[in-house]
């Protein structure tokens, strides 16, 4: 294992300290927790909280700020945070208008967030939750019942966060988040595995000329392995799988996210993005907005995922609203 860490057991804490020192105007750490909270909490809006296992940075703490998250809860690497921590996050951001929890669909995350939701409700806080399951690759894998939640979660943060920022009520913010989840699909692939620091060795291995299609963001198995082919051919394969699940037609408008899993150069992500745009143009689909970068990583894995979100006028408006966070910035009129 070759990593820039001190001790595996201190990685999470030291990372959170480092983030807090990097973005003091955006976020602060709640004492005695692994919860980061937005500095300029607005008094009059629905709170938006997300979180999950660490190792996916900048998700989720990097999305704290105007127009996205009000708090994020960081679990141990690839491990759900516990309900007591999530509960602290809910309490910290509730301003009497309720709190929306954005959960990625992993059994541990769903259970822990549900439990925190119940605990907060017992204290009289209004809490709603949505579960993101954008990955079309596999049903029921190592950590999941149903589909996994991957990079599409960031678009849920963006749009639900904008809806909350506009002062929409909890029901409407939840409904909007659910619309994003219904309209988006993702799929990823890996060129190389990742190593959880505490484990010390890679969680799977790939031959030099081999790739895994449909990989999860924790290195969970995908659909199959194949020989490395061209970027265009890989893009075509993922694109076809996404569209088989969510057909698009001429005249549709979409947002595209090409997400690096951490060790993939931006050059390669742009090459993928070029092909995605060509394929969409070929169908007569308009791309309204594109995100290329590292949004939902998997430690040092090399690979990427493609997310396509079909937009309507509301979603377009919310996607174009201002987001001012450490990891994602959109300059909008609202």
């Amino acid at each position, binding site marked *: 294992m070759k990593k820039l860490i001190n001790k595996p057991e201190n990685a999470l804490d030291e990372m959170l300290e480092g983030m807090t020192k990097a973005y003091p105007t955006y976020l602060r750490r709640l004492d005695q927790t692994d919860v980061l909270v937005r500095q300029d909490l607005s008094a009059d809006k629905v709170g938006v909280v997300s979180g999950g296992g660490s190792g996916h940075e900048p998700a989720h703490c990097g999305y704290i700020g105007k127009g996205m998250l009000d708090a994020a809860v960081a679990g*141990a690497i690839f*491990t*759900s945070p*516990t*309900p*007591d*921590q999530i509960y602290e996050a809910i309490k910290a951001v509730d301003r009497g208008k309720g709190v929306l929890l954005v959960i990625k669909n992993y*059994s*541990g995350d769903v*259970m*822990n967030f*549900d*439990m925190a939701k*119940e*605990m907060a409700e017992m204290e009289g806080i209004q809490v709603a939750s949505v579960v993101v399951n954008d990955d079309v690759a596999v049903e029921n894998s*190592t950590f999941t*019942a149903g589909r996994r939640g991957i990079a599409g979660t960031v678009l849920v943060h963006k749009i639900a966060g904008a809806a909350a920022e506009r002062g929409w009520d909890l029901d409407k913010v939840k409904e909007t988040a659910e619309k994003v989840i219904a309209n988006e699909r993702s799929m990823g692939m890996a060129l190389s595995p990742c190593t959880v620091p505490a484990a010390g060795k890679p969680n799977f291995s790939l031959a030099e000329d081999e790739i895994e299609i449909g990989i999860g963001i924790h290195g969970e198995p995908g659909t199959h392995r194949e020989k490395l082919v061209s970027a265009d051919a890989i893009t075509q394969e993922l694109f076809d799988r996404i569209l088989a699940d969510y057909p698009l037609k001429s005249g549709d408008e979409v947002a595209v996210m090409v997400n690096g899993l951490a060790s993939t150069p931006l050059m390669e992500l742009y090459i993928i993005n070029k092909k995605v745009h060509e394929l969409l143009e070929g169908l007569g689909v308009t791309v309204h907005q594109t995100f290329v970068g590292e949004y939902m990583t998997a430690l040092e894995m090399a690979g990427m995922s493609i997310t396509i979100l079909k937009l309507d006028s509301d979603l377009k408006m919310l996607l174009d609203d201002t987001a001012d966070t450490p990891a994602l910035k959109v300059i909008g009129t609202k």
Partner: protein
Amino acid sequence: MAELNQIIGALRLMAETIEKNKEHLTELDGAIGDGDHGINMSRGFAFVKETLDKGGFQNAGDLFKKCGMALVAHVGGASGPLYGTAFLRAAMVLKDREDVHAADYVQILKDAAEGIKMRGKSDRGEKTMLDALIPAYEAAADAVQQGKSAQEILNAAKVAAAEGAVGTEKLVAQKGRASYLGERSIGHQDPGAASAALVLAAVADYFAAEK
């Protein structure tokens, strides 16, 4: 009838029992899961013990709430929220109560099983802790119906839970990581059912030893 200090005693024995069986639970989990059930449970119950040492409980409900929170915060994985749910359901049954009766015990088993069903989206026969807990509830409820003594009720739950846990060997896992083994999970006892049986055994054993 059990008073607050007796319930604390029973919870203490529960924590000791889990610690004593740490290796055993980890071995069971190693066969069909990720091999951390014993470690996670003993870590969680060590914090339950710490909670008990700290004391200052307003009533039985408060006691279970604080212990439940200790489990939720420190067990982790799926067992944390599942055991945490069971304890918080017990806390709701015992809200503002100073003492606990046999009928409360039955209600706790029932509500705990319902809570775990909901949390884990699971049911009896899927090779989980419910395969120990639901038979324990039924046996305890039967014993109440038959007008048995409090100790007999606790013993009935203990025996049924132990039988239920052993019975999971015959079942195909349908929840959690063990479910990926499918048929290959047959022949192995479910570690969650095993720990649930230990927890209920500790309750019966504590009151039996007190006599």
